[in-house]
């Protein structure tokens, strides 16, 4: 009988090409996903070094980071210099023979949204992409992590990457979430409790009753923010929910190949008695909607709690960070966030832009209007998500409420010098990063679930979605 292993240890072992010593292995990389922000640079670097793409069929690309999300968009972008990135990306992928889901393609969208949607991200695959939120794909059981441009060249040129064996961490969310509390609130609570470096050096497996009960979309939200927890990646063991999500998708295995694949996928869950370096249990039933007050995702409170006092932080660097964040955010220690006036609301990004997220927001928005003076924007994560929402009439709910309804892309998750909230200062956002200036010069970002964003948009102040849900 083999020693019990974790989910990540099993996937890892299936990919070791060579042991390099120093607790580092050369891993085979099954899929490289590319986008126009870093993909063109990788391919340019590869060409400049006289190298070629090892296996173009193991790479896929899309346009998401730089392209505009306004209806009728073209190659001309609000982001200065965007055309150069788009041209370099198209030229590089065409020369290498890599399939790209371009503007106008019915499958185009945010890379981490379309990869599972296409069935190209699958359980047990190793996946890399030049984007830190590649860990999102752990939501379908892939071992996926973000890399820089140099490592992207490496993966493209060799179909391999050296990787240090991570520590094994498991977080079990036991119990059931209350209505109005979502995967976003789970992960913000985790980061708030254990810090933005709480998962440092770890592969984080999310488990427990509340995780099993999540759709693949919710699991992707959890895994998306593993990087905000400082983890190397996050993952959820594949199960029936995963298989039902993947079956029949364009890049998923078909016919006898599906049966072979599914048989392996079913063996991947962590064994009873598998050793975790760290394990924690969180009572999911006790969670409430979470909102960030500062400029790190660890600076989070429950919707009814006050912003902490800077004196409550232990040492110099932590207190310095809290004081800097309080000053930037213009929030008052000791005061709750609930009731704080907002200027804008954003629903989108690889964290929370899937059809489940839009349906949830529509539960709050139906028959209501965005408060006067609030700029509200919804950017579906992919063109298929947008089409699905339109088929369900969700687009009309958003637009009737006063939301802009955009084309798919990363959009205002980050400010690149082009698109903006038009002078709005305080934004409630379903995205993943509340860093200084992340969504625009001086913009103050409060991260929250799509439900909380929708409720706040209607209220005109940060609001508790549980008070706004249609029953």
């Amino acid at each position: 009988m083999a020693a019990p292993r974790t989910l990540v240890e099993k996937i890892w072992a299936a990919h070791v090409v060579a042991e390099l010593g120093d607790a580092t292995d050369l891993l085979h990389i099954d899929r490289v996903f590319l986008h126009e922000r870093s993909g063109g640079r990788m391919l340019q670097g590869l060409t400049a070094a006289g190298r070629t793409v090892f296996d173009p069929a193991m790479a896929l690309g899309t346009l998401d980071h730089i392209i505009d999300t306004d209806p009728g968009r073209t190659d001309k972008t609000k982001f200065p210099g965007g055309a150069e990135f788009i041209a370099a990306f198209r030229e590089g992928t065409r020369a290498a023979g890599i399939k790209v889901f371009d503007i106008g393609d019915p499958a185009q969208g945010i890379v981490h949204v379309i990869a599972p949607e296409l069935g190209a991200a699958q359980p047990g695959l190793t996946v890399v992409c030049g984007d830190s939120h590649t860990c999102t794909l752990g939501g379908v059981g892939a071992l996926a992590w973000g890399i820089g441009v140099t490592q992207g060249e490496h993966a493209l040129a060799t179909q391999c990457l050296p990787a240090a064996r991570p520590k094994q961490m498991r977080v079990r969310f036991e119990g059931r979430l209350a209505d109005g509390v979502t995967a976003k609130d789970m992960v913000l609570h985790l980061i708030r409790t254990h810090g933005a470096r709480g998962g440092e050096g770890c592969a984080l497996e999310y488990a427990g009753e509340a995780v099993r009960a999540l759709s693949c979309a919710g699991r992707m939200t959890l895994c998306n923010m593993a990087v905000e927890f400082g983890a190397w990646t996050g993952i959820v063991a594949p199960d029936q929910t995963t298989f039902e999500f993947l079956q029949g998708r364009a890049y998923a295995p078909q016919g006898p190949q599906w049966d072979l694949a599914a048989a392996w996928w079913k063996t991947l869950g962590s064994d009873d008695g598998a050793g975790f370096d760290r394990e924690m249990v969180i009572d999911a039933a006790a969670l409430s909607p979470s909102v960030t007050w500062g400029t790190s995702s660890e600076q989070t409170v429950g919707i009814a709690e006050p912003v902490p006092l800077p004196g409550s932080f232990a040492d110099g660097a932590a207190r310095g960070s809290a004081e800097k964040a309080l000053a930037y955010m213009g929030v008052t220690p000791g005061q709750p966030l609930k009731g704080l006036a907002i200027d804008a609301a954003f629903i989108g990004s690889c964290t929370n832009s899937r059809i489940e997220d839009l349906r949830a927001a529509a539960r709050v928005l139906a028959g209501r209007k965005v408060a006067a003076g609030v700029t509200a924007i919804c950017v579906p994560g992919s063109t298929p998500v947008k089409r699905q929402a339109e088929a369900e009439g969700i687009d009309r709910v958003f637009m009737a409420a006063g939301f802009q309804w955009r084309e798919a892309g990363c959009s205002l998750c980050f400010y690149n010098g082009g698109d903006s909230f038009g002078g709005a200062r305080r934004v409630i956002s379903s995205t993943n990063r509340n860093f200084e200036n992340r969504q625009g010069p001086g913009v103050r970002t409060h991260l929250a679930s799509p439900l909380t964003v929708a409720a706040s948009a209607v209220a005109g102040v940060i609001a508790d979605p549980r008070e706004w849900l249609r029953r």
Partner: protein
Amino acid sequence: MDPFVRLQGVAAPMPIDNVDTDAIIPSKETQSTARSGYGEKLFANWRYLAGTREPDPDFVLNRPRHAGAQVLVAGRNFGCGSSREAAVWALSQFGIRAVIAESYGAIFRNNCIRNGVLPVMLPIAAVEQLLAELADAGRAPVVAVDLRAGTVRAPSGAVFGFEIGALEREMLLQGADEIELTLKQRHLIDAFRARDRALRPWVYADAGQEPSHAQDP
């Protein structure tokens, strides 16, 4: 890649946690696919007065005391956030060859090693002492970092040992091209794929799972 062996130089203190790569190089500053020209863009939102290219005299790298800094000292989780490698290009093109912090964002740290920038990890107590000494106007803000010895010498002369993986140390000391090293293992990659194709045929494109809509005209 330039090797990193040792350096002695001016260090700048940044006594905060979670300095993210958006702060190190804002997205709006990366408007070209080029890998050069990032030195002047380092910390652009903090370094210049709002909406200008006028240096903010209060920002640590603009203070005469820290002019020509080659080392940056910060708190925990330095370089968290976006994978943008331009964060490391900006540091190195500005002249920063080593960062000292309690911990790092994993992708940023990987990017440092592959660009000849040394990410030193020290316990928080040592980091706090370094930050205090660098802020002490009575001392020259100079530190020495020796990768082979694995030591940092503080302005006071105190010496802190640090650890780094042997593979990463060698890559920095040699200025090695990691892709070249992996390409030398080509026979192992081919052997792995032959074995793996038998075990996991669905992972490979020739397993009959070519998607129907993937052809371009």
